Each structure stands twice: as C-alpha cells, then as structure tokens.
C-alpha cells in the first residue's frame, strides 16, 4: 500500500489494549482492562527493535512480581514496537559474557524468570507480529498460547552465531511441537513464517491486527486445545529411537558444518538425545552447554561477524532515491543483478543486443523468486518489474545504470559514450567490472563525478556483499547513494577505493592462482579443494574458479598482474590455452578443471587425502593481499576486510575472516611463514611491508 490515502491513514495501528497509554517501567508497560485481563507490552527503551538483555528480564521479573501478588484473569504479552516482537538476545551482551562462572549464574537467573512466567496461575497469551527470534521466541514459548498476526515469523537463529538457544528453547520448543521439526528449526536457524508456524503448532491462532482484541477474548474464553503427541512424538520419547534419529542428524550436520569447526549443532543434538523427560536436568544441561559454547572461538568469531554485518548495514543511508535501475548486459552477472533488484522492488530494465541472452534472465529470475519463497503473485510482480529492453530505452528513465558488459575497456567505453548522453542529470553510472581500473574507464566520461564501481559477487543471491568502489573523482553524494541503494536491495555495502581487483578479488586471485599452480604441479583437483574446505572455505578454489568462469578468472589475473607492482604467480601457458583455445571455461561450458553436468560439479573422489599440507600456500597469499589493501587504503580497516571476505567470498566464517585468522596465528608468525614460503616457492609469497604495522 502506498499513495496519499495510506500515508494519510498511517501504518496499521497496533492493538495495545488497556496498556496503550501505560507508563513505561524498565522496558515494560502494563495495564489491566475492566474484564481483569492484563496487557503487558515489551517496549525496550532507546531501541527501535526490541532486543532482550538482562535489564529487560529484570523488568519482566518486577512485572511478574505484581502479577503473582494479584493475579489477573488472563495475561497478554506483546511488543509495542511496530517492527516486530523481539529480535533475540542482545548480541553485544552475549559477547561480553566472558567469565564462564558468572555467565552460568546470570543464565540461571534469567531461566528462573521465564519459569515464573510459565508457572503463572492465569492463562497467558503471547501475541506476535513481525519476528520473534531467539530469546524473544523463548518468551513466547513460556506462555500458554500464541496468537500470530499475519506476517509473523518465529525462529532460533542462535546456530548462526555458533550457539544454540539458551533461555529454555532447547526443551520448550520440542515440548510444544514435533520433536524432529523442532530440532530442524534449531539446527538450521531458519524461521517459520505465519502459515508454517500455524502448521507446526507454534501459533495457535492466526489473525489480523484488526481482529486482535476479539481473538484475545476468544482464546481466553475458550482456552487452547492442542492435539496430544502423535505417534512419531511418542516414539521419540523412547531413548533408542531418539539415538537412531540423533545419529542421522549428526551425519547430516557434519556434511554442512563439520563438528571441528561448528560445535554448536552437535551439542544441541547431544542435549536432545540425552534428556528424555526430566525438565530440571534439561534446564541445567542447556545452561552448561550454552556457557561452553560462549567460550568457543567459533561463537566469538561469528558474533563478531554479526556485529560487523550490522556495522556495514548501518553505513547505508535510509533513502536511496533509486526507483529505476537500468542494467546493461544480460550475461550471467547482469541478469542476476537485474533479477535481484526487481525482486527487491526496483523497476529494472535489462538491455542487451542479444535477445536470447535477455530471455535467459527470466527463468533465472523465476527460480530466484521461488527460491526466496515469493508467492505466485509476488513472483509475477517481480517479473513485471523486470523489463526486457533490447533498445536500451530504460537509460533515459533510470536513476542508476549498472553496466555489466564484457570485461573489455574498449567495449565499455563505447557503451558509456552511447548511454551517458541519454542519462537524467542526476543519474549514477556504475560498473560491475571486476578487473578493470575505474580511473581508465572514467577517462572519457562527461560526468566522472557520477561514476563509480558497484561490484556484486557471484552467485548474487548467495553472497550479500557489494563493493562500492570510488574513483578519485567520485562524488561523496554518489558513494552515499550507492551504499543506500545496496541497503535498499538487502545487500551489504563495503566502501572501498579503486585499486587493482578492489578488495575481494585482489585477495581471492592469488588463492585461485595458487590452486592453478598446484594443479600444474600434478596435485589432483579434489585434493586441493579438500584442503581448502577442511580449512573452512565453503567451496574449494578449483571448483570456485570453475563456478566463476575460468575466462573471468584469467581476465582478472591478467589485469591484476599488469596493474600491480608486486610479483604475482606467472600464469601458466597450459592454463591460458585451456581457456582461450579449448574454451574450457568452467561450469557454463560444462567443462573447466572439472566436468559439469546440469550445473553440478562431477568430482571423482572428493575424499582424496593430499600427501602434503599446502593449506598455507593457498590461504596465506590471501592474507598477504589483504594486508596490502589495508596499507594502500583500498580497505578502511581490519573489520571491513574480514566482513568483505566473509560476505563476499565466503571466507571460513568461524575463523572470523582473514585478518582475524592472521591475528589468531600472530601477525609476526604469519609474516615469518610467508618469508619461508617465498624462499621455497618464489617471490609471490614475499610478505607485504604492511605486516610490520600489524605487529
């Protein structure tokens, strides 16, 4: 809804019952209506979104004290924030809980408060609009019933922070809904949206804001009748059955998140397997396990990344002023960028002289929308916004033009010469180039101040990072608008400066090239990839190069070699021939280093043990390049480098990013190791002078 009427009427007003005008007392507002029903509103001070910290729980404890002293006929708990119920525990608070003994006691205190809520003599109803995550969801589960406002979602994202639920979720959710489904929610960290939450039994009633008062009356009058445990749930109450299922869960989890890197899911499965019945023991075990996890490097690193993500987001101004995006070039990246922007609500024109190429972007867009669980109408609307534009007419309407043409400075210059005169006066021209310097590309532009790099990563739907690259002349207004645009389309902007490969490709290229050299030395593809995935990379460098496209990798490598004054690996002739002569360009050609079938890599033996450990040969050049980017000012600081490499290249998240990893090994020791590698394998490993700044 938009337009004058909805702006006049304003957003849907929350039904806050008698507590509408109640005073706030330590993050909570409460009042009782004439029928004796108490409405308790969560309204955390100084925040737009509720997050749960100890002070909020102490406030709840105070409120419970009043309620216990004079029980109402019913209790309604909901958020007074328009955005949603609660986003979970305050991650800053969790990260600061460094003393295990103290942490255990603080958790016990918090548990006691939710136990009191659960034990209230009156019926309790949680009302959820928007998201109820983590600790927020745990408060909901401590209530007798749950009313979901259409659009509500519920989830335990703790696993993504290297933790599991720690405020009773590990036993309250399996007690409320089917055991294996509860475990799946906690193991994947995925949210259940309204209708799914209703099916699962998390939400007892689904309604709209306008019917909430009646729904609350109905639920309090009739009570909630839940079906008893089904056959499957009763089977899960038998320990041997649980063990069989637990074993299966472990095997499946190991594939996705190996235990040595990600202990949390395994501890969660242990908790579930070992505690059939026995509520008190379960509560104790959850607390102990949670405290253990808080200590792990994995959790510390993932919580830090969570905050870095927030930091990148916070650097995206609210208003992007971009309604219409014109994408030039309907290749894999252009098509994917166009589809993504259309899905996120922008009007997009996609231009390419090759109609077939534009056509290919459409089924890809359908797949993208369906993968994002859009309804058929939402998918239709996204496709309506994605306008094939063979004649490039969109240029004159666009607020932002993203050029994703071939990586050839001459072709790009031709494109700019044609398109720039058609642009609106304020329109921004951005390039998605991954290898060409902005300085050169901006050379013939009439308005170089309105030109910048906007570098998306492949696959666009999976990697949340976008590099916003400024050249010397790029206006600050333009940088801000591009960062805002990234925020508006749910991407994380990393503002970097022009430099060969910017940040992510500069770091990634030596890693990919080293893999090429290893292949040249006779090491098997699979063994190289295994080394990298053991380190924690989501995909090995050989497979990744195939996915990116070997031609693109070669372009980037050549371009980096020509622009950098530092020694880089010689690109082997056999590799150049493979790409240029044989056209074995990777996944898109069904053949690169690997064979590909229907988009799937065909590996021969993915458990082939490498004979020697060349992890450092692969990983350290990446670190070395990051240090160089820091020294040259391409990247702002170590936080930004870590966030960019994790969110743009999938660098092992549990290690916290390349700089965090370097710090954990010790900067000096990494530098010495690089010297050692340089002496053995060549100058490409010689440590950057920037390492001494880190020591």
């Amino acid at each position, binding site marked *: 809804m938009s337009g004058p009427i909805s702006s006049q009427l304003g957003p849907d007003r929350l039904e806050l019952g008698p507590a509408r005008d109640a005073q706030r007392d330590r993050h909570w507002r409460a009042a009782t209506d004439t029928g004796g029903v108490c409405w308790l509103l969560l309204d955390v001070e100084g925040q737009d979104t509720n997050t749960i910290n100890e002070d909020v729980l102490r406030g709840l404890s105070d409120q419970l004290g009043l309620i216990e002293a004079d029980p109402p006929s019913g209790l309604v708990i909901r958020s007074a924030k328009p955005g949603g119920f609660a986003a979970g525990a305050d991650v800053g608070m969790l990260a600061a809980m460094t003393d295990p003994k103290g942490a255990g006691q603080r958790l016990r205190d918090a548990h006691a408060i939710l136990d009191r809520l659960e034990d209230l003599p009156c019926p309790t109803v949680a009302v959820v609009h928007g998201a109820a995550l983590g600790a927020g969801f745990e408060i909901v589960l401590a209530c007798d019933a749950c009313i979901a406002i259409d659009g509500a979602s519920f989830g335990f994202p703790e696993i993504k922070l290297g933790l599991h639920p720690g405020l009773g979720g590990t036993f309250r959710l399996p007690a409320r809904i089917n055991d294996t489904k509860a475990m799946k929610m906690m193991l994947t960290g995925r949210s259940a949206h309204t209708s799914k939450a209703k099916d699962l039994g998390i939400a007892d009633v689904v309604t709209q804001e306008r019917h909430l008062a009646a729904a609350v009356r109905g639920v309090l009058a009739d009570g909630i009748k839940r079906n008893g445990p089904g056959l499957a749930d009763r089977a899960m109450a038998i320990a041997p059955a649980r063990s069989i299922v637990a074993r299966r869960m472990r095997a499946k989890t190991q594939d996705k998140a190996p235990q040595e890197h990600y202990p949390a899911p395994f501890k969660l499965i242990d908790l579930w397997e070992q505690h059939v019945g026995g509520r008190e023991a379960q509560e104790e075990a959850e607390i102990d396990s949670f405290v253990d996890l808080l200590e792990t490097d994995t959790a510390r690193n993932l919580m830090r990344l969570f905050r870095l993500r927030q930091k990148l987001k916070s650097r995206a101004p609210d208003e992007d002023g971009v309604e219409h995006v014109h994408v030039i070039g309907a290749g894999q990246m252009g098509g994917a960028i166009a589809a993504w922007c259309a899905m996120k609500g922008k009007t997009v024109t996609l231009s390419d002289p090759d109609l077939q190429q534009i056509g290919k972007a459409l*089924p890809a867009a359908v797949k993208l929308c369906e993968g994002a669980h859009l309804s058929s109408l939402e998918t*239709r609307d996204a496709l*309506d916004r994605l*306008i094939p534009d063979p004649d490039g007419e969109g240029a004159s309407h666009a607020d932002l033009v993203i050029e994703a043409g071939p990586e050839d400075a001459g072709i790009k210059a031709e494109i700019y010469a044609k398109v720039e005169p058609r642009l609106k006066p304020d329109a921004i021209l951005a390039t998605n180039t991954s290898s060409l310097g902005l300085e050169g590309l901006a050379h013939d532009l009439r308005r170089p101040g309105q030109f910048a790099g906007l570098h998306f990563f492949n696959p666009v739907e999976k990697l949340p990072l976008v590099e916003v690259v400024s050249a010397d002349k790029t206006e600050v207004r333009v940088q801000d608008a591009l960062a805002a645009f990234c925020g508006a389309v749910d991407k994380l902007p990393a503002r970097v400066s022009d430099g060969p490969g910017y940040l992510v490709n500069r770091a990634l290229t030596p890693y990919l090239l080293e893999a090429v050299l290893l292949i040249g030395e006779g090491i098997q593809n699979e063994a190289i990839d295994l080394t990298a995935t053991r380190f924690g990379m989501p995909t090995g460098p050989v497979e990744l190069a195939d996915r990116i496209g070997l031609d693109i990798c070669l372009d980037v490598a050549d371009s980096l070699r020509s622009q950098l004054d530092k020694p880089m690996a010689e690109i082997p002739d056999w590799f150049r021939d493979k790409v240029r002569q044989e056209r074995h360009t990777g996944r898109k050609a069904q053949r690169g280093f690997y064979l590909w079938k229907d988009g799937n890599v065909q590996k021969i033996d993915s458990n082939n043990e490498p004979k020697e450990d060349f992890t450092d040969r692969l990983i350290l050049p990446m670190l070395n390049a990051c240090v160089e980017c820091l020294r040259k000012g391409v990247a702002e600081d170590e936080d930004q480098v870590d966030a960019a490499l994790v969110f743009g290249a999938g660098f092992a998240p549990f290690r916290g990013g390349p700089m965090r990893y370097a710090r954990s090994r010790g900067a000096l020791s990494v530098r010495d190791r690089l010297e050692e590698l340089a002496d053995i394998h060549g100058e490409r490993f010689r440590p950057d002078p920037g390492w001494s700044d880190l020591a």
Partner: protein
Amino acid sequence: MKDRPVYLVDGARTPFLKARGRRGPFTPVDLAVQCGRPLLLRQPIDRRDFDLVILGCVNVIADEMNPARVAALRMGMGDAMVAFTVQINCGSGMQSIDTGFRYIRDGRCDLVLAGGTEALSHAPLVLSADAADWYAGMATAKGPVDRALQLTDLRPDHLRPVIGLERGLTDPVTDLSMGQTAEILAYRFGISREAADSYAVQSHRRLERAQHEGWLATEVLPAFDRDGKVHDRDDGIRPDTSTAALAALKPAFEKPYGNVTPGNSSQITDGASWVILASEEAVSKRGLEPIARIVDSEWAALDPAFMGLGPVLCATSLVRRHGLAREDIGLWELNEAFAAQVLACLAAWEDKAFCRDVLKLDDAFGRIDPGRLNVDGGAIALGHPVGTSGNRIVLHLAKAMRRRGDRRGIATECIGGGQGGAMLLEAAA
C-alpha cells in the same frame, strides 16, 4: 467548445502468436504488459502521467476482471490510474481508441493509453447450462441421500465442456458461425474459392515482405516468456503457401461444399496492441512527435447474417461526412476476418445498385486499388485476436501512412453480431 485535435503519438504490439491447441505462454493481461512496458519506456512521458487507460478485450479470464486496470497496475502506472475495459466484440481494440479520442477531443483528458488484448488460446471451457444446474444441485445437496439422488441425474453430456471460443464465434441471434456468414457473402457477391484463396496467398506474401523489409520493427516488439523464449515475430505466417496448397484444404464451416477454409480465414491467435493518444497541448508540452491525427470515427450496424459488410456501411458514411471521395483515401486497412468477406466488401462498393439502395449514393463508391488495401498483409497471415485487431489496424495504418507518405487513411473492420467500425486518420503535420 471547439473540438480539440487528437494525435496518435506512438504504438506497439506483441507478435501475434498462433493458438496451437494448448494455452499459449501469455494471458490477456500478460500480453498487454509485454508490449505496453517497452512502449511506455520509449516515450518521454512518465507512465504515471497518463490520464486514462482503456483496453479492449472480449474473452476476459476469471483472474483478470477489468483487464485494463490489472494491466495499468502491472505496468507500474500507479494506484491513481483510472482504467476501464471496453467490449464490442471484434471492434473492441478500435473502440478503446475511439473512446480515448473522444475524451481528449472533449477536453477531459490529455494523455490516454488505448489498447486491445486477446488470448484466444486461453478462452475458457464452459459448462452447458444443464451441467451448471447439476453442479449447483450437488453443492447444495443436504446429506448423503440427497447427494446420491443428485448423482443419479448426472448425464454424460454434463461432463463434456463446451469450447467457449466456439460459442464466442457463433452469432447468438442467428446461430450462424462467423464462417457461415462469410459463406453467405461469398454466395451473394459471387466470390469464388479461387479468388478467396489467391487473396489469402497475397496476405501471406505481403506480411512476409513487411517483415523482411523491417517495416514492422517499431510496431512489433519482442515478447519474453517465463521459460526464456523470445517471441519476436508473427508466427502464423506461411510465406511458402500457394493457391495450389490452399486449394487442397477442406471447408471449415459448411462441409462438404463450402468455400471458406482455414486457409482463407483469419487465424485464431493471441496478441495485444496499444496506442498512445495525446492532445495538442500534451504534444507541445512534452515535445512528442505524433505519427498521425485522428480525424473521426464511425460505427454502423446491420443484419447479423451479413456482418462481414459492416466496413462498407461505416467507412462510406465516414468518407461522406467529411466531404471526401474514395480517391481521397490513400490507404485502407480492412480487417481480414475472411478473404471472401473482404472481397465481398470490395464487390459491394463496386456494385452501383447496392451503393444506391443501401449507401444512398448516386453512383458506385468505386473500386479500391488493391495496391492501397492491406498493403502489409492482414489477419489471414498474422491472425485475428478479436479484441486486439481493431487496435492493430489503426496502429499499422498510421505507421504505414507515414512510411508511404499517404495523407489520409481509413482503418475499418467487420464485427461479429452485425456491426462495423471505421476510423479516419490524417498524416500529422
């Protein structure tokens, strides 16, 4: 108040896609969106600045009630865009232009998007009235006994859906199919099977030439379906057809002796078309470059059995009202519902007695030069999406007049149910 001039600024259509026995890739609104979006992009007009959207459509599908409004919203023209759908059967796409023309002429609007759309391949299967009653009975039956009794009323006929399209192409008053009305005209005006077939061959040849010469480049815009397939030209064309090939076809409507065959009739097709209409004020304010001026329009009605003669009635009145004669009209688009029907119209205009008695002329209207009629082919080669064709012939007339340098032109069509519509265009200054 003085009539304000009304200009046709631009227009575009989808390729016409022949219905091939199953549902095509686009619904009626999908088609309208496909050609509407790029058309709106290429003019210096913010799509929200239009005053009105009018769309002709005959076979509206249940998910797209008032397709004009659905299309306007889906094309991003804004919540505040008024949009309505018009229907006069085969004249709907021209009726939308005529309505927009009148709104602008009278000073109520400055910018109107007027179109036509039809997805005949999506025409619904309908139940017979008996079957609908039976289903209703089942739905309201109370209890198992009642339902069982209802069940016994089921007859095999009830399960046989009626093809909605077939009913739609049958005159509801005379119960004649459109093809039969063409048979009647062929008989009454002495149009031979050979003449009809050779006219049909010419339609294909002319369309092929137009495609080949690139004369349709700005008129037919590619449509992209969800599977990534690009539809970039009218696909019902058979450039290699010949009178010999057509002679082998069996009659479609009156077997076995009839003369109207699938080869000399228009094709069943999906397609959409839009034109942008603007007042003089809008033209000068926005720096638009009109391709033609809409001078006037005329509708006429006659015995449904002779519906094919509709153009003769309305076009003649239009010409006479403006004090013009046949030779003042440089170009004609006369929708090719059937070859025999087009030829019957020409014959009627050459028939002195017919012109005197029916058209109240002193003499025969005269012979229309085949070199000035449907010069780039017509519905026989490219198909006849009923709600769209009236729009297409006006759009194509305007574009062809500009290409050829003709000063005046008329687009006209016969309309199932016994009507005709005609529109007079003049080259824009």
